């Protein structure tokens, strides 16, 4: 019986030869993740279960990244709960400020997640790790608590949608544009409860950073997971990082899909999602005049080295528009160091761009770039819901890093082609 990559990984972790969509299974977990917003609730629930310790001290990962470095006393108290829990349970993978990064940039970089894994995380963008050919999905704190105690979670095996990306990408088009285009096509619940399998020539030619961006936003189409089969690009990335043995799974050619959707990538322009849903997409040529007050470049979606290089390429020799403040958030300390070594920070700072330590900060309206009433931001982040980056009457427009940088220079949403 033919299976998709997601079905194969779930079957292997449920101790079964095969599984079918709709089937309820209990699967062994390779990693359970939580952050400084979700772990406090998970820790309280974990304590209610009454087990002496976590199922595996190497496999429970805590990353305080949302309100850190702590923005106020209340968030400091929350982060302290993680620190105390990590000490008490001798967790190997607790990442303090200075060692931490944005969780979904950090875990792949540190080799904590790899191909063939089953990962749950109390953060909806846990689906990012699907880019490695793993099954990774976001859950709530209670699911994370149960996973931390038992090393297992229940899942309904999802149906899958196969997305085939054909052709070559145009200049300034990347993983962000492919995924925004896809969400614009199928809608914010277009893949509800389903697996999104990204395939095709354009995906094979996409770098790991671009693949992470795509899998990251599967949740914005309602997807249970986004997944890309591991290939040589994946292996090259994983080798030398992986902390555990990994396994490459591939979909059978005759695997069953609920839908197959094909795109001609040569027709996809840089894409911008207008407020207040990621599905409200427009190609850059149809954006019109949208003046901005802020540009945010970074996040678990676009805070990797390639994203920063792309932004720097556009900023080089230019200044941020006088009406705009621009902030760059590298995803991890390693990315920060690399960007510094490559001279990207000189370019940013000369362009009047502020460079921050890694944090989720403004993406969720936490800190470090909150919008006032009526203000607009272009952002390389993943959500543009009402009030997402600050005041309920502010607006967020989502784009790739090149468009965000060009917009910061122009003072309005625009393309690098328009930058003189």
């Amino acid at each position, binding site marked *: 019986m033919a299976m998709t990559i997601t079905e194969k990984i779930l079957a292997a972790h449920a101790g079964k030869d095969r599984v079918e969509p709709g089937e309820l299974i209990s699967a062994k977990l390779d990693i359970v993740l939580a952050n400084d*917003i979700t772990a406090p609730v998970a820790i309280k629930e974990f304590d209610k279960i009454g*087990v002496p310790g976590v199922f595996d001290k190497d496999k429970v990962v805590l990353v305080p990244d949302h309100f850190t470095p702590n923005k106020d006393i209340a968030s400091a108290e929350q982060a302290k709960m993680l620190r105390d829990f990590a000490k008490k349970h001798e967790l190997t993978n607790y990442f303090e400020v200075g060692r931490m990064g944005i969780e979904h940039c950090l875990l792949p970089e540190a080799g904590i997640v790899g191909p063939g894994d089953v990962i749950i995380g109390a953060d909806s963008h846990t689906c990012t790790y699907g880019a490695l050919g793993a099954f990774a999905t976001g859950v709530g704190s*209670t699911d994370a608590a149960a996973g931390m105690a*038992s090393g297992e979670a229940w899942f309904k095996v999802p149906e899958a949608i196969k997305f085939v990306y054909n052709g070559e990408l145009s200049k300034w088009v990347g993983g962000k544009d492919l995924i925004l285009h896809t969400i614009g096509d199928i809608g*914010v619940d277009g893949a509800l409860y389903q697996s999104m399998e990204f395939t095709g020539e354009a995906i094979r030619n996409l770098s790991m950073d671009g693949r992470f961006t795509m899998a990251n936003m599967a949740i914005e189409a309602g997807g249970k997971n986004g997944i890309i089969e591991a290939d040589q690009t994946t292996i090259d990335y994983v080798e030398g990082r992986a902390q555990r043995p990994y396994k490459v799974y591939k979909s059978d050619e005759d695997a069953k899909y609920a839908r197959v959707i094909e795109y001609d990538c040569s027709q996809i322009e840089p894409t911008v999602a207008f407020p207040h*849903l990621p599905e409200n997409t427009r190609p850059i040529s149809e954006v019109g005049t949208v003046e901005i007050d802020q540009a945010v470049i970074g996040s678990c979606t676009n805070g990797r080295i390639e994203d920063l290089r792309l932004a720097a390429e556009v900023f080089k020799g230019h200044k941020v528009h006088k009406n705009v403040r621009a902030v760059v958030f590298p995803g991890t300390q390693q990315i920060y160091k690399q960007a510094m070594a490559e001279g990207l920070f000189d370019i940013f700072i000369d362009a009047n761009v502020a460079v921050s330590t890694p944090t989720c900060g403004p993406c*969720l*309206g936490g800190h470090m770039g909150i919008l006032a009433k009526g203000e607009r931001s272009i952002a390389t982040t993943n959500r543009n819901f009402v009030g997402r980056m600050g005041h309920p009457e502010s607006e967020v427009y989502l784009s790739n890093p090149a468009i965000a940088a060009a917009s910061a220079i122009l003072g309005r949403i625009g393309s690098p082609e328009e930058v003189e």
Partner: protein
Amino acid sequence: MDFQGRTWKFGADVDTDAIIPARYLNTSDPAELAKHVMEDADPEFPNKVKEGDIIVADKNFGCGSSREHAPICIKAAGVSCVIAKSFARIFYRNAINIGLPIFESVEAGEKIQEGDVVKVDVNTGLITNVTRNEQYQATPFPAFMQQLINAGGLINYVREKVNKGGV
């Protein structure tokens, strides 16, 4: 068991940032979170909602973040249950895990008007619109999920399993 209460109606794709904005997530205290329930969808909602009221919404309720604070603050605000045409996946899971009753019904999401008084039979999922004298049937839960609900949520379920030496 039945719930009966006044309904408050919301549109499609109500996201978890609208249910509980991240600016309030520096605490996980349910009573504190409840003061801001649904604030970015309707700023007056925290003042208007009463114990036993019912939220009714269009499709994809609770999309976005995995924050369990969303169903927690709805429950802590006294809302007895949520009825929607469909729920986003993580919200659905979280609601069941923490014991916030939810019911999926396209017809109910369509026909119930704000202010209608509605009765919900928790065991059968039969929704009676007392105001309009109509009935709608919610999608039944799979058996395993019904087990979780009967156990009073995931933690109770796992605790029972642990005590039986199942883990």
